[in-house]
């Protein structure tokens, strides 16, 4: 067998695998000793679809008259173009005009929409020779994923269908514009304007990530800026999600082909994309690429030299991307020639020293954080990156940089400069007219007071923001130290605040510092007023159980009444159940149980007749117990076969069951269940950590323990609990 035959055989065999993993394994096996052969086959597999497409255009002849014409060069150059493709094709109501590019499994054409309105669009058709069902399904997935996106900075999907020959296509908004980097250079945009564009870009990518779509090839040529109004800065639009794939999808080829180049433009490619296993990519890879674009917007060039990378062999390129640290923007500019630096500065409406000063510090830090080799150290989300840039623009502390006191003070002053300035003006006036103006004296005091309030407000917000940041960074102790200093919430609290207080509240609860935890959760409840999320009702559970644990029964009673009233119209079974459960830690009085009726109804309706989970049983069994329906409460609370007997929910159900059984006179059984519950609760508390939905969160354990106390007191003690229940029965 000669080498071509071997190659051919291997190529054909490898081609047959749809799954990249299996393909790789196959090649490893068959080319074990022979690296060169394996590289060769991999190379062929990579370019296969490119090749198919290249050869799909059939050669044609053109009339010779058109060529010779008058024999002048001008005439001759024209017909050359007409020989390019055959007559323009029509696809439904779109006329194809020109081929724009290719990627993934499709080709993109410039097309003209004819009806109902005439406009130019971008039309993407599945590539020739790629009509297997699997590819069509992938194409359809892509189309659907793109159609899900609805963002002013992302090119929109307008239409979809199939050609006469059955090839699927979809139509996208055509974006006319120029590359973002070119745009900024040509219009000589200053740094702030560039940052403004960049933030929009980040938010667009964030939108896509939230829909589960990675872009995978973010680079300047995929971010076009179209000028809308003359004199105004244009709107950036991200295009070519054509190679984006839904995160759940499985990319078949390791590299990406764009316009004849086989590898997704290396200068913007993340280290892991260049790596051996480029299938393990996530959103942070896009963030790296965003960082690279950011770098170029600031300095005029990408972090790595495109040419150098493109000319390098794949291994070398990988080595550079994964190991070689790029210079931070300010240092890079420091190292180039004076002339070049001046040119770059001019295009940013600045001069060399000013530009360097601007980049040094925060912007350096932000860029480098986005470009971290280790993706764990990058920004976790595109919106996080955008937020930091915005903080920079607002003179707020940037998270990328570890703050020092002086740094933060500088920011505080800069932000409140206006206020400080006006204070200064008044002070000067005062000094001048001190002997005559009592009025001014009072004004000054007023101003000072307002100033103090403003500063206190600002500091409070800052503390909260900082605490939120610390909490996210896994430093709850420090976060708590900050939040402790806050005794009342700022006028305009933020969502950051909720998460900070909640995180710290959880942390305190885990250390069984119930009092402090309660204080934090009080704030969470207040802040929750601002928003309606499913998680709000979880917060209610936490707060309720903390109140009971710390013995603050009057606040608890008040809380129950308020929550029951507030959620009386709740139809969502889960939310209603959580509120109901939270309000039944103590036997409810008549007023409260009336308020709880609708919630109980919703919970009962949502309760499945069979095969329910332990946690779902709790609200129902507890309610029935509190109402005196001991038998049906026992039925519901009875553990089912095969259910975990170490979870907080099971312990809770056992406690309820015990109490119900006790009322039915089955004392021994009741005792048995109490013992069982005790065992579970003891074990649970021994290894208390944040917990999860199935074993139980820390507040689920508190809940279980509380009911267990009640059950124990009832069975072993004086049975005083029973009286309260009888009260309730009378009322009903």
């Amino acid at each position, binding site marked *: 067998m000669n080498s071509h035959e071997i190659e051919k055989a291997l*190529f054909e065999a490898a081609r047959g695998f749809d799954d990249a993993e299996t393909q790789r394994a196959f090649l490893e096996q068959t080319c074990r000793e022979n690296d060169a052969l394996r590289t060769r086959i991999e190379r062929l597999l990579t370019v296969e679809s490119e090749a198919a497409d290249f050869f799909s255009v059939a050669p044609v002849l053109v009339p010779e008259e058109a060529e010779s014409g008058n024999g002048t060069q001008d005439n001759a150059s024209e017909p050359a173009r007409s020989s390019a493709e055959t007559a323009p094709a029509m696809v439904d109501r779109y006329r194809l005009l020109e081929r724009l590019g290719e990627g993934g499994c499709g*080709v993109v054409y410039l097309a003209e929409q004819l009806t109902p309105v005439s406009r130019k669009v971008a039309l993407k058709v599945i590539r020739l020779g790629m009509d297997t069902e699997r590819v069509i399904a992938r194409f359809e997935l892509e189309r659907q994923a793109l159609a899900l996106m609805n963002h002013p900075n992302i090119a929109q999907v307008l239409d979809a269908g199939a050609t006469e020959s059955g090839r699927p296509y979809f139509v996208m908004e055509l974006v006319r514009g120029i590359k973002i980097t070119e745009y900024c250079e040509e219009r000589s945009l200053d740094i702030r304007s560039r940052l403004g564009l960049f933030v929009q870009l980040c938010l667009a990518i964030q939108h896509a990530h939230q829909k589960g779509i990675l872009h995978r090839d973010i680079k300047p040529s995929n971010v076009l800026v179209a000028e809308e109004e003359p004199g105004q800065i244009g709107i950036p639009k991200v295009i070519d999600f054509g190679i984006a794939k839904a995160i759940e999808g499985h990319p078949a080829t390791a590299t990406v082909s764009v316009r004849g180049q086989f590898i997704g433009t290396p200068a913007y490619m993340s280290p892991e994309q260049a790596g051996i296993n480029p299938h393990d990519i996530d959103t942070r890879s896009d963030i790296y690429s965003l960082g690279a674009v950011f770098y170029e917007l600031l300095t005029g060039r990408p972090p790595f030299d495109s040419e150098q990378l493109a000319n390098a062999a794949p291994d070398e390129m990988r080595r550079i991307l994964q190991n070689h640290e790029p210079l931070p923007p300010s240092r890079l500019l420091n190292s180039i020639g004076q002339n070049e630096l001046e040119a770059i500065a001019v295009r940013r409406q600045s001069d060399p020293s000013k530009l360097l000063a601007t980049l040094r510090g925060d912007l350096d830090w932000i860029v480098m954080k986005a470009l971290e080799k280790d993706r764990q150290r990058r920004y976790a989300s595109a919106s996080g990156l955008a937020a930091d840039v915005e903080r920079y623009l607002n003179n707020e502390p940037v998270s990328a940089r570890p703050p020092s006191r002086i740094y933060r003070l500088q920011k505080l002053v800069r932000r409140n400069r206006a206020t400080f300035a006006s204070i200064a003006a008044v002070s000067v006036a005062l000094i001048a007219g001190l002997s005559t103006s009592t009025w001014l004296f009072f004004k000054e005091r007023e101003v000072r007071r307002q100033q103090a309030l403003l500063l206190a407000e600002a500091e409070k917000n800052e503390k909260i923001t900082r605490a939120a940041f610390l909490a996210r960074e896994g430093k709850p102790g420090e976060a708590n130290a900050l939040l402790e200093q806050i005794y009342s919430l700022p006028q305009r609290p933020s969502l950051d605040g909720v998460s900070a207080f909640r995180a710290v509240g959880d942390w305190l609860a885990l250390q069984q510092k119930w009092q402090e935890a309660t204080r934090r959760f009080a704030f969470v409840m207040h802040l929750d007023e601002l928003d309606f999320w499913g998680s709000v009702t979880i917060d209610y559970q936490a707060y309720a159980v903390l109140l009971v644990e710390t013995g603050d029964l009057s606040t608890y009673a008040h809380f129950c009444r308020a929550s029951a009233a507030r959620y009386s119209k709740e139809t969502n079974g889960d939310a209603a159940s959580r509120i109901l459960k939270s309000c039944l830690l103590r036997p409810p009085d008549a007023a409260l149980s009336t308020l709880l009726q609708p919630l109980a109804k919703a919970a009962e309706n949502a309760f499945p007749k069979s095969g329910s989970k332990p946690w779902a049983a709790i609200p129902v069994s507890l309610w029935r117990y509190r109402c005196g329906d001991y038998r049906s409460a026992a039925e519901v609370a009875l553990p089912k076969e095969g259910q975990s007997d170490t979870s907080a929910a099971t312990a809770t159900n056992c406690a309820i069951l015990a109490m119900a059984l006790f009322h039915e006179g089955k004392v021994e059984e009741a005792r048995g269940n109490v013992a069982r519950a005790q065992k579970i609760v003891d074990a649970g508390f021994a290894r208390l950590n944040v917990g999860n939905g199935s074993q139980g969160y820390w507040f689920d354990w508190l809940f279980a323990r509380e009911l267990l106390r009640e059950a124990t007191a009832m069975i072993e003690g004086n049975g005083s609990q029973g009286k309260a229940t009888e009260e309730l029965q009378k009322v009903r």
Partner: protein
Amino acid sequence: MSDITILLDAIGRGEERASADLLPLVYDELRRLAANRMAGQSAGHTLQATALVHEAWLRLGKDEEKKWQDRSHFFRAAAQAMRQILVDRARQKLSLKGGASAKRVSIDDIDLPHADVDDRVLLVDEALSRLEKEDPESARVVTLKFFGGLTNKEVAGILGVTERSVERQWAYARTCLFEMMHKER
């Protein structure tokens, strides 16, 4: 035209020299046909290479009666002839453009999506010449598919293999060739 028929019969009978004479005849015939078709036509009127080849075959007459060997010989020759014709025309156009076109076309200069058919023809031709030396079988498939514009089924008939086999060979051949075009810097 009858010359070709006679030649094909001769080849069928196993006369060695006959096959060597076939190509120039077919070449002439195709060129003549092309000139006929293109004469006086406007610039937008293009003619697919494969259309030309098939027409020439039809003009040989009594298509159904021709044995598959005759088909085989004819189409192989026709595809080769087509290659020559296309390359000639491409080179001619290139020289008309003058100046810059004197430089050799390389795949990196071409923006592939907009690549001119002529550029493609020349690139493929060059690379194919190299491939022929290393892997004549693959080269044959390329000639038949690309220059002859024949379908997998037709190629299968001509080479006497299964359609599936053609598909696989074509996939490999074009990939190989494409890769070769890229190496040529």
